[in-house]
């Protein structure tokens, strides 16, 4: 009865607070969409290359859809050309000597130029090799013909020519490469790797923030004290909050997951129910953590101050930087971050089709986090009423 009234009150309060509602439901979708477009444009990035006195064959070989070639005629230094025209790099040729000067303020552009230059050189070399082979082949052909003429004159020895032909074919093997992808497809971008982690993070962050501030407001306005002046149990207050805000967290989670599936058209190999399950667990952990952290804040501003301590480090250990590539002493730190377990299971379900049994250990850890935070919350409530 009390619990239902608590939940009902939280729902009414929340529904009348349009801004918070928008923050909870629209902001996550906005952030995800923004990231989606950011990572889309990244795949067809181009770099401008200034060329000076460079062999036109080489220039032609370097040219591809990621490189814009600009001819440079002035004699000023490569550095000032880059500065004045904002080129990603300048390539100068003096005799057999090539000099590539890179702006290098954007490493991905430098990489494009280096790669294109390398490719171009290989292309030129293989072309040159091909011409030599052709010339040799022609010479060989001539020899064969004359040989054939000789053998014909000698009679019956034509079989001897065959092995020579066979060797000719081996000299220019023509490989055909077919690539198979275990997870994802050739269209996979970094965004696809990032998305499962991002969904988990967005759910975690917004639920943490809103639940924390909600309970904080209750503390600072004194309504919590007044609430505890009634025979309500401390656990009823915490559970009421958990359920009241849990409803919003649930709706938010559904919205974020469905949005990513239908709008970004992301392929989910595992079951969507597992995805909901992971995110609901993450939301509940964020909720209990938010309520707990708000105990240590005396104003909304102080609550925001906890974000760099409590939330930001979790992003680093959520899998955006692969945890198994971190320094050995750093890896255990990931294990105390709830988001690490959530994001890891999300990636496994979405990209690798992990089943409930596969993610159960991670869910178990999240459950443990939730129980610990709940217990600490009940203890923290003692500050306000000792029974």
């Amino acid at each position, binding site marked *: *009865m*009390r619990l239902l*009234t*608590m939940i009902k*009150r939280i729902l*009414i*309060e929340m529904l*009348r*607070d349009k801004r918070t509602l928008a923050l909870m439901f629209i902001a996550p979708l906005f952030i995800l969409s923004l990231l989606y477009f950011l990572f889309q444009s990244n795949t067809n990035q181009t770099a401008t290359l200034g060329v000076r006195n460079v062999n036109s064959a080489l220039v032609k070989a370097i040219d591809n859809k990621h490189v814009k070639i600009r001819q440079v005629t002035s004699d000023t230094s490569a550095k000032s050309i880059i500065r004045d025209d904002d080129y990603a790099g300048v390539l100068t040729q003096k005799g057999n000597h090539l000099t590539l000067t890179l702006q290098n303020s954007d490493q991905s552009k430098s990489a494009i130029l280096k790669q294109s230059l390398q490719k171009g050189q290989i292309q030129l070399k293989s072309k040159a090799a091909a011409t030599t082979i052709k010339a040799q082949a022609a010479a060989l052909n001539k020899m064969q013909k004359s040989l054939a003429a000789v053998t014909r004159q000698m009679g019956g020895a034509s079989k001897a020519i065959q092995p020579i032909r066979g060797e000719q074919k081996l000299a220019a093997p023509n490989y055909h490469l077919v690539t198979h992808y275990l997870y994802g497809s050739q269209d996979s971008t970094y965004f696809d790797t990032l998305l499962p982690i991002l969904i988990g993070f967005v759910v975690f962050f917004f639920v943490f923030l809103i639940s924390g501030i909600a309970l904080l407001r209750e503390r600072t*306005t*004194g*309504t919590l*004290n*007044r*609430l*505890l*002046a*009634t*025979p*309500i*149990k401390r656990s009823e207050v915490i559970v009421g909050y958990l359920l009241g805000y849990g409803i919003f967290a649930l709706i938010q989670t559904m919205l974020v997951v469905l949005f990513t599936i239908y709008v970004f058209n992301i392929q989910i190999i595992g079951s969507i129910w597992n995805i909901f399950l992971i995110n609901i667990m993450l939301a509940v952990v964020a909720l209990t953590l938010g309520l707990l952290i708000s105990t240590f804040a005396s104003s909304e501003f102080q609550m925001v101050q906890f974000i760099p301590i409590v939330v930001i480090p979790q992003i680093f250990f959520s899998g955006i930087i692969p945890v198994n590539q971190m320094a050995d002493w750093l890896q255990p730190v990931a294990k105390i971050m709830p988001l690490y377990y959530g994001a890891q299971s999300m990636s496994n379900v979405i990209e690798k089709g992990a089943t409930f049994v596969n993610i159960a250990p991670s869910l178990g850890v999240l459950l443990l986090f939730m129980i610990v935070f709940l217990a600490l919350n009940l203890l923290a409530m003692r500050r*306000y*009423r*000792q*029974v």
Partner: protein
Amino acid sequence: MTNTIQVSNLEQGYGRTVVLKDINLTVTSGEILALIGPSGAGKTTLVSTIMGMLRPMRGQVAVLNTPMPNRPLLAKIGFMAQTDALYSSLTAQENLLFFGAMQGISRKKLREQIPHAAGIVNLVSDLTKQVSDYSGGMKRRLSLAIALVSDPEILILDEPTVGIDPELRQQIWHELHQLAAAGRTILLTTHVMEDAEEADEVMMIRNGEAIAQGTPAELIANYGVSSVEEVFLKAGRQQDATTHND
């Protein structure tokens, strides 16, 4: 007349700081006790201890013969906090319904009680307004209505008359006297001397100690002065004199 609130040899504090020492008080049903003292004297701490929000550091507190803290007993206490602890995005009606339900009152009974409680504080016509649109005085009145809505045996009011105009103050006192006459126990804190004069019994607190206790008439007679305010000033000077002698 039965003792409803009994505090004996209470010492209270936070950590090592002692906020209250050697407090003894008894309130009987039908009595209005005013705790009077400057801010920071320890009035709110005493009220919190009586309500069982804090466990006594030393000494005993009993309400309705039950040692405090005791959670279920809070259903019999109507409390008005010093701050206007209200949900500003809810209407006054919704606030009353919510706190009433938390107090454990059935919805049906609340429907009868809300107009009555709102009537005492002149808020009947504003019940459907959101609290965020309320003035400071209206919030204070609504806060009092919330304490009254459960029709409790004991009323504990922390600074109930702050920000309330004289006319309404009189009306509220009239209602408090009626409630006392009906056998309710009322304990209130104040730093307004006029409030103290309306009370049946006064306890003056200064620096965590009870410096004077009795009915207003008794106190005025004992101290040989003409008003409660002068009693307070004289008792305060006596307290300072004894601490200096220590």
